């Protein structure tokens, strides 16, 4: 018996010792790290004084501040421009990205925390549908080589084509991406939504993949989500295109603002397969879209100061939304009803709502939540819905349920 115990103890100890030895490889660094950093702000300021007379071509390896990007709505990021074409993107979460112009070198005395991206930026991983839509809108889709949504999940034709042709590769879910494919692709930079889990973030860091979290979803103003296009414009040297696209969307809202408010009230909801009703908090971007469209979000006192969705008890929703003039049902999250009868099957409370009786129930289109670059146009659609005659039953992003 003692002998057996001794054998067991020695075997397991050997295994433990081997594991400890294997762990030594944790420190092995086989991927060429591109991590250098950015020179400090103080250094940049002192450099600025010296470089007034320096020629453009002499800014190689120096950070001399030039100007900052003008942002009208976005609060969660900023872009600083430096002489010689260097750009620094700062996210509200303190992520810093230094974009190095082609054929220019990384400035000395750099901060280890800063992500260095050598332009042209390509072969990146994007795990966010709105981000993909913004990059696609400025014509930089070719820079994305990996994504975490398969071809059937997409409603954006260009992305579907890229996945079908093999220009873009699906690497599994954002919760458990295929790390082998990421490593084999040589990708060293990825953009994720805030749904990135900590274990995935840690493993990507371990594999030398730097991450930017797209926080456009946390922006308070709907048009700020569109303005994130400017960040990607800076990343891919497509600022002019981004500026033009953003201005197009802003102009939709500006035009509506010139008109008189319709005074119509709008409720927004969906019901899950488990029968739970979700609506939007008062300060959510969809509620604000209704207000910007010349309407009034009917549950304006529910979830004040909060964004996102709210699981609401049926009676409370009915009480607050029964007199709403319009009901927008979120199709992609709520069982995808094709007709009004499909939606009414989900709950008896809908039948007694004013919007249903008046035939003013509209449904979002499948691509509604995948696209961030046309939020101005979506707001315009809500305005058209509020002002449309009874014969109108289909807009770009809204469809009437009949």
């Amino acid at each position, binding site marked *: 018996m003692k002998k057996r*115990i001794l054998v067991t103890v020695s075997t397991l100890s050997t295994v433990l010792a081997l594991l400890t030895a294997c762990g030594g490889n944790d420190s092995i660094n086989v991927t060429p790290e591109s991590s250098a950093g950015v020179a400090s702000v103080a250094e940049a300021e002192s450099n600025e004084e010296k470089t007034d007379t320096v020629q453009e071509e002499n800014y190689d390896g120096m950070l001399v501040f030039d100007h900052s990007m003008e942002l009208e709505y976005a609060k969660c990021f900023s872009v600083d421009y430096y002489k010689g074409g260097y750009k620094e993107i700062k996210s509200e979460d303190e992520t810093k990205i230094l974009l190095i112009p082609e054929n220019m070198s990384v400035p000395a005395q750099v901060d280890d925390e800063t992500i260095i991206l050598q332009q042209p930026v390509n072969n990146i991983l994007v795990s966010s549908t709105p981000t993909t839509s913004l990059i696609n809108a400025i014509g930089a889709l070719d820079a994305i080589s990996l994504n975490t949504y398969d071809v059937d999940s997409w409603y954006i034709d260009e992305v579907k084509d890229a996945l079908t042709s093999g220009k873009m590769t699906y690497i599994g879910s954002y919760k458990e991406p295929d790390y082998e494919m990421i490593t084999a692709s040589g990708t060293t930079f990825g953009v994720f939504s805030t749904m990135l889990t900590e274990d995935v973030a840690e493993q990507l860091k371990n594999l030398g993949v730097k991450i930017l979290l797209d926080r456009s979803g946390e922006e308070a103003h709907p048009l700020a989500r569109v303005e994130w296009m400017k960040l990607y414009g800076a990343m891919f040297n497509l600022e002019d295109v981004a500026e033009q696209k953003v201005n197009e969307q802003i102009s939709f809202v500006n035009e509506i603002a010139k008109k008189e408010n319709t005074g119509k009230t709008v409720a927004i909801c969906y019901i899950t397969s488990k029968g739970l009703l979700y609506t939007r908090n008062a300060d959510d971007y969809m509620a604000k879209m209704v207000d910007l469209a010349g309407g009034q979000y009917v549950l304006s006192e529910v979830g004040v100061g909060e964004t996102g969705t709210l699981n609401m008890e049926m009676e409370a929703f009915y009480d607050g939304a029964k007199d709403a003039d319009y009901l927008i049902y979120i199709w992609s999250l709520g069982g995808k009803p094709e007709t009004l009868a499909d939606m009414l099957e989900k709950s008896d409370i809908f039948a007694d709502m004013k919007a249903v009786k008046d035939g003013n129930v509209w449904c979002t289109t499948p691509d509604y939540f995948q696209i961030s670059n046309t939020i101005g146009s979506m707001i315009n659609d809500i305005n058209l819905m509020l002002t449309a005659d009874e014969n109108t039953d289909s807009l770009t992003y809204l469809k009437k349920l009949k």
Partner: protein
Amino acid sequence: MKTIETKKMMRIAVVFFVLTATLVSAFFLNIYTGSIKISLRGVYNILFLQDESNAAAYNIIWKIRLPRMLIAAILGGALALSGYLLQTFFRNPIAGPFVLGISSGAKMVLAVVTIAMTGLLAGNKKSFHMPVSVTIVAAFAGSMVSMLVVLLFAGKIRNMSTLLVIGIMISHICSSVTDFMINFAKEADIVNLTHWSLGSFSGATWVNVKAAAWIVIPTALLTGLIAKPVSAYALGEGYAQSMGVRVGFFRVALIVLSSVLSAAVTAFAGPISFVGIAVPHITRMMLGTDKAQLMIPATFLCGSGFCMLCDLTARTVFAPTELSIGTVTGAIGAPIVIWLMLSRRKRDGGE
């Protein structure tokens, strides 16, 4: 008589040989197989000659496949051994680590920590992302809290069925508290919790492997040291007492050891169903005996091999989409248990 003993010894030797061979095969299959094809020679060079000429292949083997495979082996063994100890303690074939509230306790504490830390720290720094180490510590602490409550009752209640029911009730209480908190949390704040509760070996790092090994291996060694009293206890408390086992102390030791093992699994990989219940049955049926001196090492080996093969299936069958480990352990393990039980009935003269 001698022939029967010899046959038994032969069977045991064959079982240990098969389990070891399975483990070795699973090791090579896991190292060789993946969504990126690396030649056998390439794998050999990277693994044994430290060939770094192909950096991507080197990283895939050393930073992705090897730590993941080892954590599946370590935690699979721990989970199976924990299940065996609990089945012995409760004298109930369906007692398993997660029936008694271990995973529910872990999830509850993890939910409290996630929501509290997000609320307290995210206010001034939106980048707040809970470190993996905090998840592991919270899950481990939660598992131990559940087990401490079961232990408190174990000191007062002698009836094992009652104790088992209390364990299940604790599990439900923890789940209710968790659901209550989730109701008021934002989706993005609890995304880690949701992901963790699916159970997975994905994303294992060497730090995780080392930490898991430092918990599991000493605990498994301690379990091996009490194999004799475990065998005696399996034959009844009275028999164990007559053999000089201090039953009160032994009961506590059994629960603590099994809890530490399953808490480690929950902490590093999330809740993984089925293995803790089924693997001890599979091992017992293969060995044809319940002798703890054999069951403890055999269950550990069987659990390791089983989890390594299940994880290989989870990550490769629908690659790049990965299945949750629980989906595979149930789908592969349950038919094996049914088949083994039917085979035994036939052999014993049943239908």
